[in-house]
């Protein structure tokens, strides 16, 4: 049960014994072939990785495949993770998200395009069922920050990130001129970032 640590009081991705620092350290050990460290890293991150894959793909079997592929990639490339350029969690979720999005776009390109016109609310509704597992201070902060976005910004960010839609699809779904959605996604993310106190990263 050693992997069930309490949620840190300060969830911002700073240094110093925090969850992010511990995840980075585990990944460093994994890069040297330490399978136990990697198992611990998996235990600390898998719920988020899998949850994100399920959210984008909406198919548990495919989400399992994507999650597994992502972790194997992480193991293979652990030595190339650079904590100065971002957190280990972000590194992992970027990989999972990209794989999930690539998969929906490859397998459902035309289907999803059609669906985009009919399911305007897809991806916008909050699913509360998954939240109990990670009820935490951080989750509250994220929800509060999300609530602080304009409804239009929130919809655009959620459709793009959690829905896996391109900005042009998001524009169609939200009846926006093409070109407006990308601005809204960026503005929404920046506002969230600032509200959540995500520091500067990757400035090298």
């Amino acid at each position, binding site marked *: 049960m050693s992997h069930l640590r309490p949620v840190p009081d300060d969830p911002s991705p700073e240094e110093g014994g925090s969850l992010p620092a511990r995840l980075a350290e585990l990944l460093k050990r994994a890069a040297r072939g330490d399978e136990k460290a990697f198992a611990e890293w998996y235990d600390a991150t898998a719920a988020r*990785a899998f949850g994100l894959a399920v959210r984008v793909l909406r198919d548990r079997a495919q989400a399992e495949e994507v999650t597994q592929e992502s972790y194997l990639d992480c193991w293979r490339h652990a030595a190339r993770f650079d904590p100065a350029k971002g957190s280990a969690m*972000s590194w992992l979720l970027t990989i999972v998200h990209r794989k999930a999005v690539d998969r929906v776009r490859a397998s459902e*390109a035309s289907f999803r395009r059609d669906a985009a016109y009919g399911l305007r609310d897809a991806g916008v509704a909050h699913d509360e069922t*998954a939240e109990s597992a990670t009820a935490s201070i951080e989750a509250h902060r994220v929800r509060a920050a999300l609530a602080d976005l304009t409804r239009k910004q929130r919809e655009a960010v959620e459709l793009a*990130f959690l829905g896996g839609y391109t900005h042009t699809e998001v524009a169609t779904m939200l009846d926006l001129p093409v070109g407006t959605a990308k601005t809204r996604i960026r503005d929404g993310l920046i506002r969230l970032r600032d509200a959540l106190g995500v520091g500067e990263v990757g400035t090298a």
Partner: protein
Amino acid sequence: MNPTSDIHALSGAFAVDALGDLERAQFEHHLAECAECRAEVASLRETAALLAQSEAEAPPESLRQGVLSGIGQIRPLPPEPPAQPAQPAPAVRTDVRRRRLPQLLAAAAAVVLLAVGAVLWHPWQHDRANVADQVLHAPDAVTITEKLPGGAGEITLVRSVALGKAVMIADDVPQPPAGKTYQMWLQQPGQPMVSAGLMPDPKEPAVLSGDASTASAAAVSVEPSGGSAHPSADVVAVFPLKPT
């Protein structure tokens, strides 16, 4: 390519994988030159990672077993060589060194790879052909976009007369049906269409074989796997080209 002045505005969509293939390639190119956007993308990815936590869901135990038994059979790659200018440099750069190509060639390749690969988050996904990148970023590159019938996405042809090459990039184009492939064609003035190669995966930019600088047209058709000698009736896109 002709990046517009507001290419910075793509940072958010890029950070959450919401760009089409062409825009993604353009923005990656831009990232190589723009430290500000690199920092912004990194910070927006951190932000998106926080958003994902409300979706957290415990995976089945079988997944854990699959991962942990899988890593036992995979050798972790060594670290990058030191003194990288930016986030994980491309794996291919190491490979270039290992193959000990003649020094000049290696240096030239490294410049191209560094420029494009230095900013990529997933270095291992970057084994895309260098020719494609050269064409996409050629100063004289001209693009033509054609929509496919039935709303099945669009294909953009990028041609550099100076390089004599053309690249096709599909956006939102579905995978070909089972047993079929996309095939590219080039037509020289007054000649029949000649195969310019297959595009087996519409998610990958495909370089057309043949001299694109003199061609009068390019096309894409759906053909049986392995390709055809002549285009079938199922031509999905035609690109008229200005003769040079």
